[in-house]
């Protein structure tokens, strides 16, 4: 019986890990693969190594939280297996309907649902986790905002003079054959860029391991019948690696492809910020979704950049359409003052002045953020319903 249960759990864990491997490899390596700096196979190989390192070190803190701290009793194997099924269900929904379901939050949601149903929920812990979930996207958003408004333009200007992403792409496509058109100076910088991209990729892979290995591994560790921590981490790493080598080929194109619309320099800023947030919180034992910190930083950068001509205070306080219009006017004036060939309004219909703030109006951002909360909320409700109906499994 226990062996069967463990076997079912291992299969569920492999499914979860496999899918995590697909999605996290996609966002970690999509930009670098898109820029032609690493191949998909190399990316998957590096991913596997650093996911393991992240899982076996920092990931332990998160595993402890998941299996011991969210509920007042230890997570049993049968409950763990049920929780894995809810995580798997979330992933299925994400795959089928194309909605974002942050895995780490779904996991916590499922365990919290179990705690609610059995009256073993550690409210203090869950309150702490949820407050971090509220604070983290805001932190990511603001850091992104500061990068987008002040740091990125500055760095972009300086880097652009010496080294554009263009030559890097064409050099890499040539493979080992040296391109005579590129001087030795460029080659050195190409090399430096490649090394930086690889290091940042490894860092993000490490944070993916720290935050995501526990989702596949922790539910199996619980109780006397469960796996040993190290075996569970190895199992999760193997599954994530498998996902990285197989389905990630597609996600590196789709999810990563959307990311590689963004200039590589901006993507690197996003990766460093998101990885730092994720690793720090994981070290504190707070389960956090790497994908969510990534997208919040991206949106923050876009928002910071889009609201450039507006003063900081105005950008924060604007909330109605009337104020929006005022800001739009302000933006037009600012652009006209800066640019020497601003088109006269009404001169030609197709040449109207576009306002980047339209891309990130507050209502759209709120709707966007709420999209990420639906998945975890659903998993809490479903797990609560399930464990209320079948209390024996807990």
């Amino acid at each position, binding site marked *: 019986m226990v062996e069967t249960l463990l076997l079912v759990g291992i299969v569920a864990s492999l499914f979860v890990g496999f899918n995590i491997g697909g999605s996290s490899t996609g966002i970690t390596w999509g930009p670098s693969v898109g820029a032609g700096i690493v191949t998909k196979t190399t990316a998957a190989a590096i991913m596997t190594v650093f996911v393991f390192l992240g899982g076996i070190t920092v990931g332990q803190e998160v595993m402890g939280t998941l299996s011991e701290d969210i509920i007042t009793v230890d997570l049993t194997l049968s409950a763990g297996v049920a929780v894995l099924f809810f995580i798997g269900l979330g992933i299925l929904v994400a795959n089928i*309907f*194309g*909605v*974002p379901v942050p895995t780490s939050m779904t996991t916590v949601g499922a365990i919290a649902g179990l705690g609610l149903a059995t009256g073993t929920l550690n409210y203090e812990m869950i309150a702490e986790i949820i407050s971090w979930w509220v604070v983290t996207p805001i932190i990511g958003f603001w850091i992104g905002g500061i990068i*987008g408004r002040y740091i*990125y333009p500055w760095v972009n200007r300086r880097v652009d003079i010496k080294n554009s992403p263009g030559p890097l792409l064409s050099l890499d496509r040539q493979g080992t054959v040296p391109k005579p058109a590129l001087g030795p100076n460029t080659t050195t910088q190409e090399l430096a860029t490649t090394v930086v991209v690889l290091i940042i990729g490894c860092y993000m892979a490490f944070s993916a391991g720290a935050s995501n290995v526990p989702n596949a591994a922790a539910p199996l560790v619980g109780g006397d019948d469960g796996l040993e921590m190290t075996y569970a981490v190895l199992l999760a790493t193997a599954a994530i690696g498998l996902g990285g080598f197989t389905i990630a080929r597609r996600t590196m194109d789709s*999810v990563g*492809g*959307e*990311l*590689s*619309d*963004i*200039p590589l320099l*901006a993507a690197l800023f996003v990766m460093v910020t998101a990885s730092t947030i994720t690793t720090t919180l994981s070290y504190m034992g707070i389960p956090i979704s790497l994908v969510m910190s*990534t*997208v919040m930083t*991206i*949106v923050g*950068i*876009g928002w910071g*950049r*889009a609201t450039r001509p507006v003063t900081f205070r105005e950008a924060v306080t604007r909330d109605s359409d009337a104020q929006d219009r005022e800001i739009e006017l302000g933006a037009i004036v600012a652009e006209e003052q800066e640019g020497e060939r601003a*088109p006269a309004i009404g001169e030609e*219909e*197709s*040449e*109207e*002045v*576009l*306002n*980047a703030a*339209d*891309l*990130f*109006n507050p209502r*759209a951002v709120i*709707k*966007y953020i709420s*999209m990420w909360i639906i998945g975890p909320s659903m998993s809490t409700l479903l797990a609560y319903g399930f464990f209320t109906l079948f209390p024996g499994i807990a």
Partner: protein
Amino acid sequence: MLSTILVPMDDSDQAGHALEYALENFPEADVTILHVVGVPSMMMGDAVSLTLEDDLSEAAAGRAESVFDRAHEIADERDREITTVVGIGHPARNILNRAEEYDTIVLGSHGEDRDRATHRFLVGNVAETVSKRSPVPVTVVR
């Protein structure tokens, strides 16, 4: 007599049908094509990369080029002139903000490959939203 028509287009077949319908049924009207870029998506890649461009208007125009090329092809077949306008952000809001400048709006029922839940949640059905809220008559072409 309807003299000005707004035809919002994306890269779907329906959008092409909408333009054909507008050109054929309103032979005297001035037709304006609106294409919206930087539409919200799961990773916001399109919108964010637009904001990072040095010249937003130029970048937006560049991204709209393929849709406008197709629109011009359709118009050329019928010896008609069209005007093109680029918008950014939310499609329905873009359309509605301009609606009053035109006598009517003609648009396709839905974009292609846009039935993904993320898109439906963030953008919704543009034709439905526009026909519900537009101050001018709307024709939805299937």
